[in-house]
């Protein structure tokens, strides 16, 4: 089964939940789709890492053949092509390489070259295969890297796979959850946290995915995120306490479920509920 872990903003606890669920599951695969700032590998410290560069195609114009007819510029919905002095000019950082400009060019004056935008790195940490997507600094879109990660995931099916999503609810998150059998939404116990929870809650409903919430940083007293879940009949899979010891271990990049029995139990319990929900 494939489990996606998402949240409306960064720093909510996606990686904490993802890394620990993959760890307690055993014989699992962990995919870090938060390609702008992947950090799961800091916890897993994978060994025998191999890397693969990810390229995207970029159109280039053969100025000798271009007659400045503008068919390419008119076709491009992202306005990545301007026509100046009867010659087309490409803006690679705005291009969403669809190949359409090449198809409409009557002169065959457009060809594609490949440009590296990042890489995926794969290694092993105990019985977990750890695969991270890494987008080069300054690049616009991580989607091609996420697609490469998901292709690898499909080519190497595993009994249990955790997809650590990027924060928010934009295209990169949608790409990441497309193949998921279940989505875990991680939420903070604040009014702001409820706003962010609502974003991903709407997203998983739109995609028709089964889902549940893990409440992170729980304190005594009222938890607005818990109130939201109760009001919307959202199953709560677990509560991670606001615990100084957890914070210390986590900031030292330790996987808490590997060293603290209490947390091993907590994440095992969350995992069991997810498996039961998927089997139903």
């Amino acid at each position, binding site marked *: 089964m494939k489990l996606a872990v998402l949240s409306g903003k960064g720093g909510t606890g996606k990686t904490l939940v993802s890394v620990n669920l993959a760890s307690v599951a055993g014989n699992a695969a962990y995919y870090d789709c938060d390609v702008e700032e992947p950090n799961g590998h800091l916890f897993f410290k994978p060994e025998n890492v191999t890397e693969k560069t990810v390229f995207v195609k970029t159109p280039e114009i053969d100025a000798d053949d271009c007659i400045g007819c503008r068919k390419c*510029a008119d076709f*491009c*919905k*992202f*306005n*990545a*092509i*301007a*026509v*100046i*002095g009867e010659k087309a*000019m490409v*803006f690679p*950082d*705005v291009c*969403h390489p669809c190949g359409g400009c090449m198809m409409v060019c009557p002169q065959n004056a457009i060809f594609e070259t490949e440009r590296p935008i990042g890489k995926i790195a794969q290694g092993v940490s105990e019985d977990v295969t750890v695969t991270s997507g890494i987008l080069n600094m300054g690049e*616009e*879109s991580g989607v091609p890297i996420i697609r490469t990660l998901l292709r690898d995931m499909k080519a190497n099916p595993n009994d249990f796979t955790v997809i650590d999503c990027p924060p*928010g609810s*934009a*295209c*990169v998150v949608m790409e990441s959850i497309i193949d998921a059998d279940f989505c875990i939404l991680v939420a903070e116990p604040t009014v702001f946290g409820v706003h962010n929870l609502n974003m991903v809650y709407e997203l998983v409903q739109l995609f028709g995915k089964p889902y549940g919430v893990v409440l992170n940083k729980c304190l005594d007293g009222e938890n607005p995120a818990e109130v939201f879940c109760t009001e919307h009949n959202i199953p709560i899979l677990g509560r991670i306490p606001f615990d100084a010891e957890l914070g210390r271990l986590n900031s030292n990049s330790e996987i808490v479920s590997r060293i603290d029995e209490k947390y091993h139990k907590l994440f095992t319990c969350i995992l069991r509920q997810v498996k039961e929900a998927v089997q139903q």
Partner: protein
Amino acid sequence: MRIAVPVEENEKEICPSFGRTPLFYIFDTETNSGTLIENDAMNAPGGAGIKAAQTVIDAKAEVVLVPRCGENAAKTLEAGGVKLYESVGLSVEENIQAFLDDKLAVLTDIHPGFHGHGGN
């Protein structure tokens, strides 16, 4: 010479966004008259600066008066031989006069653009 200025719907004030301005005012110094043209890039999902620059180049402007400009628009305008000058205040009329009186400076501070912040 033709001078292009991004203007608001009220047709009098300069719009601070080159790419997403609703209109461009094109002033022709030879005829001493101006026309308004629509900016098709106003609601473009992306690449608005590039498309707006194309509109200005197609209108045969040689100069653009703006308070600021993104890098893709600036690159397109440069390729089209259009020069950028930094506008002062909001009045379209006063800025055109200031340019004609040699009182506006060349715009050198090109920002990296506001594109890509919708999470595409």
